[in-house]
């Protein structure tokens, strides 16, 4: 059986950014209630730039691998750049075909990340 590509399985089993317990300045949680997936994104910022990323939560392999790979993508980007990220860029980052039924899994962490920054700008 080969359910997902190796990169997805690797990042799911051995995440790099999971539960880093950052002294985060920004924190935001999103849930995909119908699947039971939860992702909380923690960020450290310097000015407008993300300098450290961590996440916690649980969910399927795609949602967790996506949340982990998003750490590579988001670190070093400015708020403006992050808010411009599209679902196509997330699919490219994952490097696998994402079916309609799994798109919510793939995009949950991006939603958490972008909403973290939108929340923050409201304060």
């Amino acid at each position, binding site marked *: 059986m080969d359910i997902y590509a190796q990169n997805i399985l690797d990042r799911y089993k051995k995440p790099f950014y999971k539960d880093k317990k950052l002294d985060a300045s920004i924190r935001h949680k999103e849930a995909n209630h*119908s699947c039971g997936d939860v992702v909380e994104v923690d960020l450290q910022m310097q000015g407008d730039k993300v300098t450290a990323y961590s996440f916690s939560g649980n969910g399927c392999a795609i949602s967790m691998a996506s949340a982990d790979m998003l750490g590579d993508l988001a670190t070093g980007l400015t708020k403006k750049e992050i808010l411009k990220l599209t679902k196509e860029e997330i699919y490219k980052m994952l490097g696998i075909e994402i079916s309609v039924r799994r798109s919510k899994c793939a995009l949950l962490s991006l939603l958490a990340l972008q909403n973290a920054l939108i929340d923050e700008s409201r304060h």
Partner: protein
Amino acid sequence: MDFKKDFPIFQHRPQLIYLDNAATSQKPLVVLDAEKDYYERLNSNIHRSAHFLAEEATIAYEETRQTVADFIGTEKKHEIVFTRNATEGINLVARSYGDACLQESDEVLLSKMEHHSNIVPWLQLKERKGVNVRYLDIDENGQFVFDSSQITSKTKFVSLTGMSNILGSIPDLKPIIAAAHAKGAKILIDACQLAVHSPINVQELDADFLVFSAHKMYGPTGVGVLYGKEELLKKMPPFLGGGEMIQEVFEDRFTPNDIPQKFEAGTPNISGVVTFKAAIDYIGKIGFDKIRSIEQELTEYTLNKLSALPYLKLIGPKTTDNRSSVISFAMEGIHPHDIAEGLSQKNICIRAGHHCGQILMDTWGLPATARISLAFYNTKDDIEQAVHALEEVYKYFH
């Protein structure tokens, strides 16, 4: 006996292993033919035009009402209201009976294993009228934790499932119905899962209302049934307004039609209702004795196979007592979506998620479960292939 041959989808997709029957069942050829036949020979609007075709269509539509009445054991066919689905039936009762007959601080009693469709309409009633909504607890076998003291003089309405869509359990409703009636409360039974697995007799049950959906019982989507006792339906105000549900319309008022038309505003799903008769007749031809015995055997087989996997945890009753063929489970360290994805790659359809039962999931601390739900057309080979795929999924992630 190979019942799959009655269902064309298994000829078009010979590899398909369909274990998601609690979501919707597949449709036998007799049902598909009935729909085609309706449109080819009978198509006309019902209860309206004076021509022969409208009369024939009306007769066919009303024949299904009689068939449904017989199917659930009422002698009064006007106690059968056609809706879009079971959800609409519950909404109709909450809106019509709830708004007219319940007052602020009255209590509506539900259970923690209700489908969202039997929770949200009552929470909406709470928003409109200020009723209190309370929930019966569920034990590990999926039975209600109940004693008659839980129904008080404040309890005016009880709405409970006849079979859990998550646990597969069939709770004992009789003592609750008796206790509700002793205090003057009315009771609705959500028979959406039960109706395809077990015979129902509303008179024996003494249910005030009962709902189910055609599509879960080999019939078409878009047709539901609301049964209501005549005296209750008569005193309830209409739900939706429009054609068919009125007798007379004036500039400033209207008079509603008699039951059941009072609750069937607008052109209904005529082809669906006519077709539903073919589905009930199909069930009747095989018979519930046979259906139940096949499904019990398949359920026992599945429970035994799943219990043998040390990393798999069954959620709900572990035996075939007081249950039917819906089986939820979790696997160590693997999210149910990943289980379903793995099985999907082997052409095996199961459900993963909260199954519209978030209150039970939260109560039992489960983010989600995987669910196998069997119909009588499934086979032991289907189950063996599913179990083999589950073993492969486990190996893949460990």
